[in-house]
């Protein structure tokens, strides 16, 4: 054979999968790390609320009407004397429940349907996928929520179902576009030449290469879900039992004229903090995972 034993990559060059490279970049992104830290903090609060470690007394009347900020009531009390801080922390749990359920289901659904559509682009399968996405995108969001609430007879998960069934199309379109791009790449052709069946090609070769989209979409979808929850709860289409930031803000409208803003301030500040942190995290993920930059 020829003398050319090609050298290995230089010994000290970073030996890494794309994931490790991404992690390396993420670690150098201070805004993204800060966002991640804040999200983790909220998550701890949420888990605590789920497990009943704290904020268990959110529904109890523990003070007087519109009680002031004090050591016992960190952010005062509401119109009937419930502790605003406890309610806000409890609502963090609700926000994560809504955000996680919706984000995971919507992104998962978008990934699978989008991948199938993209892989079978220009066939009737893709036509159906496109039609479905078009239909769901054309229905106004609030009407969708209402319609599903009607159909599910006020099931508490109607809001989740409505969000999943409208939110997945964004991921679906992105994944479909990416899959169409990937499908034409030679490594997919190589897999077909080897005889890998279509389902395995989609799940083993194509979908893993869309993970960067899915991860970013997960964070964005989470943000959309908790923002939508606030509006829906205010409109009376959202959270029915329990407590949420949306219900707190809704409740605060009764207090404006009397000049009490604690409910509004606390709920919207917590909401802002979480959404902002997630947005920074999404940006950092986008930069770190962008395959164009991972050279």
């Amino acid at each position, binding site marked *: 054979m020829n003398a*050319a*034993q*090609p050298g290995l990559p230089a010994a000290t060059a970073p*030996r890494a999968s*794309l994931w490790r490279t991404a992690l390396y970049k993420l670690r150098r992104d201070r805004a993204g790390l800060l966002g991640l830290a804040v999200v983790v903090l909220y998550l701890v609060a949420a888990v605590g609320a789920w497990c009943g470690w704290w904020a268990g007394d959110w529904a109890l009347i523990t003070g007087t009407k519109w009680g002031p900020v004090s050591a016992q009531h960190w952010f005062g009390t509401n119109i009937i004397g419930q502790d605003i801080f406890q309610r806000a922390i409890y609502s963090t749990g609700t926000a994560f429940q809504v955000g996680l359920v919706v984000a995971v289901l919507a992104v998962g659904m978008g990934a699978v349907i989008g991948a199938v559509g993209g892989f079978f682009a220009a066939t009737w399968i893709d036509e159906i996928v496109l039609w479905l996405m078009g239909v769901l995108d054309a229905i106004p969001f609030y009407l969708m929520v209402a319609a599903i609430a009607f159909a599910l007879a006020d099931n508490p998960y109607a809001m989740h179902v409505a969000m999943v069934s409208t939110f997945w199309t964004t991921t679906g379109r992105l994944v479909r576009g990416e899959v169409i791009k990937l499908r034409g790449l030679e490594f997919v052709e190589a897999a077909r030449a080897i*005889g890998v069946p279509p389902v395995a090609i989609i799940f083993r070769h194509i979908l893993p290469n869309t993970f960067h989209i899915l991860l970013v979409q997960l964070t964005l979808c989470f943000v959309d879900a908790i923002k939508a929850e606030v509006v829906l709860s205010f409109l009376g289409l959202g959270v029915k039992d329990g407590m949420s930031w949306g219900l707190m803000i809704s409740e605060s409208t009764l207090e404006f004229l009397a000049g009490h803003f604690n409910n509004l301030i606390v709920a919207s500040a917590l909401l802002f903090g979480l959404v902002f942190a997630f947005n920074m995290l999404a940006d950092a993920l986008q930069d770190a995972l962008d395959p164009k930059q991972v050279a």
Partner: protein
Amino acid sequence: MNRPLLEVRELRKYFPIRGGLFRRVVGQVKAVDGVNLQLVAGRTLGLVGESGCGKSTLGRAILRLQEPTSGQVILSGEDITALPRQALLAQRRQMQIIFQDPYASLNPRRTVGQAIREPLDVHRIGTLAERQQRVTELLDIVGLRDSVRDRYPHEFSGGQRQRVGIARALALNPALIVADEPVSALDVSVQSQVLNLVARLQREHGIAFLFISHDLAVIQHVSDEVAVMYLGRIVEHAPAASLYREPQHPYTQALLSAVPVPDPARRRQRIVLAGDVPSPARPPPGCAFHPRCPRARDRCRQERPELASTAGAPAGTRVACHFPGTEDRETD
């Protein structure tokens, strides 16, 4: 001559053009338009042509990576265009492909070892340990160390990735490999390394290659025979030595003379063709080459020449031209 390993008969691949109110088919791009080829086991056929001539489509249609519109592809006596999916899977062991773009031809999320092992996994060949052993062998054949198996493609140079792609193609011991422009994305100093590897594989492993390239110089180093394609059809097919020495078709002659030669002392008379390649959606009538051909006459505009052997040409040469020959060509 032995029975050919691969026989392509009247192969066509048309892509529909849609238009109008109801997206009906209003025309066809005739990417491959009636190609006949034969390839004997262990030999290399070079397929040369400019971009858009249909050479890559032909390669993929032979492997049924793109479904041919019509015609037959007979591999080891079996017509693979007629095979159902399951039977085709078994035939895939016999035929493999090497790609042009070393950056796109490996899945960036899978290690080199996984990529090379995948054909063995799909076809359930041997135990896991045997497959791992085979990966080691394959890496050795293409000149890579065993320690690279856990690395990811982006850690490799273009030439090394191309070696990995070759190892993957070799895994199933195929009888035929279609190599689609395997060196055109590589640096000049690396091209020779890969070309030598291909030549060695053919020699030592008896693999037949269909070697597709736009570069006549590259084709020369690996091919026993050469076929020249223009607008979906083969215009000349000849043993390599005679094609380079005595090209018969005016297009082959123009192609040869257009290759820049790295020797300032050898200024040649160049045949510069006028105009561009016509669109394969609307090929010219008669001989598709006639609008650019210096020899074109009335007959060429009306009657399409068939690929046939001609008097005065070297043995084994077949050419699709009404007025073949070397007379217009300068001697150098």
